[in-house]
């Protein structure tokens, strides 16, 4: 098999076996369940703020598995073995991003259906939320792998990862939530631009960070 495909399949398997794939999903649904309790059962109010709350939940859900994306592979020598076999660190990072997105993006899109019902989002908003998440989750996955690589070998990497990742994710949040309004097409395009930029940069940043951590 093609080595990149093998890496993607392996990472997906590890994520499922370790329970890491279910964690963001249950967190996302938990937020959607708790939010109406906190705000109160006021339908119009929930519909107004619910979409933004779901975007924030998606963002924080993407942050959850960050400490398991790269650090275990680095400790177990798996990354070294890839490098010895002539696979570039950037390529490995890109494969890891693809695997992380596959394990978390599509399930999140599915989970957004019950979540939006809980928050009384109407069909049009739900459609824009799904579209926005489909565009934005690759960037969230890319950011997750990138911060995971950047905090490699640091103490308290999990907490630090949040500080590194969340500021970079701000554009996604702004444009993603902005796209939920009736005039959202412009925001959606900007979301796509931000997502493309982050997804394109991340493999190089993550690859460089992996290489630096090896020294």
């Amino acid at each position, binding site marked *: *098999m093609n080595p990149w495909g093998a890496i993607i399949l392996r990472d997906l398997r590890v994520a499922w076996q370790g329970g890491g794939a279910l964690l963001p999903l249950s967190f996302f649904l938990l937020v959607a369940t708790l939010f109406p309790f906190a705000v109160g059962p006021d339908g119009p109010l929930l519909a107004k703020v619910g979409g933004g709350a779901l975007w924030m939940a998606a963002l924080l859900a993407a942050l959850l598995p960050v400490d398991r994306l790269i650090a275990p592979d680095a400790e*177990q020598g798996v990354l*070294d073995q890839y490098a010895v*076999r002539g696979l570039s660190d950037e390529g490995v990072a890109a494969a890891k991003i693809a695997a992380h997105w596959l394990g978390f993006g599509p399930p999140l899109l599915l989970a957004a259906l019950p979540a939006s019902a809980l928050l009384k989002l109407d069909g049009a908003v739900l459609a824009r939320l799904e579209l926005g998440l489909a565009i934005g989750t690759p960037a969230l996955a890319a950011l997750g792998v990138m911060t995971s690589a950047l905090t490699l070998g640091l103490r308290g990497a999990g907490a630090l990862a949040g500080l590194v990742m969340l500021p970079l994710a701000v554009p996604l949040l702004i444009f993603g939530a902005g796209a939920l309004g009736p005039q959202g097409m412009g925001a959606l395009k900007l979301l796509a631009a931000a997502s493309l930029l982050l997804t394109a940069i991340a493999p190089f940043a993550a690859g460089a960070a992996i290489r630096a951590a090896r020294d």
Partner: protein
Amino acid sequence: MPPARLAFDRVACLRGDRLLFEDMSFALGPGEAALLTGPNGAGKSSLMRIAAGLLAPSAGMVEREGGIAFAGEAAALDPRQPLGAALRFWAGFDGAVRGDVETALDRMGIANLAEVPVRMLSTGQRKRAALARVLAGRDGIWLLDEPGNGLDKASLARLGAAMATHRARGGIVLAATHQPLDLDGASEIPLGARR
């Protein structure tokens, strides 16, 4: 296997502000082997990592011809997977054919552990599993960091036999070790002469 070659040309290794070694030159051709010896912290593992291309030498050149199989401190096997499946993952990268993993397991005497998850293995068994990963590949250059650590007498003999077969096929073995290894006619590269 294409003719393997590993050559260091005046290589230096600087870690932090400590110079571990400099002017390190040696060349290994097909069938040759070298033992890397020296006290803890002398730079044996660093030299292995430089040979594997994981660390850039601070000065000098490293030439490699042929694939590299590296067995470092970490086994690089998924703890949750059965040993056989974990080895087959790497065998897929190394162009091994069907049966190579089974043969390698058999040669390291752990064929009966193929279905056991890696996390259940003992230290010595894990070391043998990492060596089986090297055996299952088709690489010309074997870089073994402390391959004898935690191995019992019978396993050491198996390791010796495996290295001999590999050299007979034209492979290279570079091993860092504290204990005597069964490597006939291997040159010795002592490290740590400097303070």
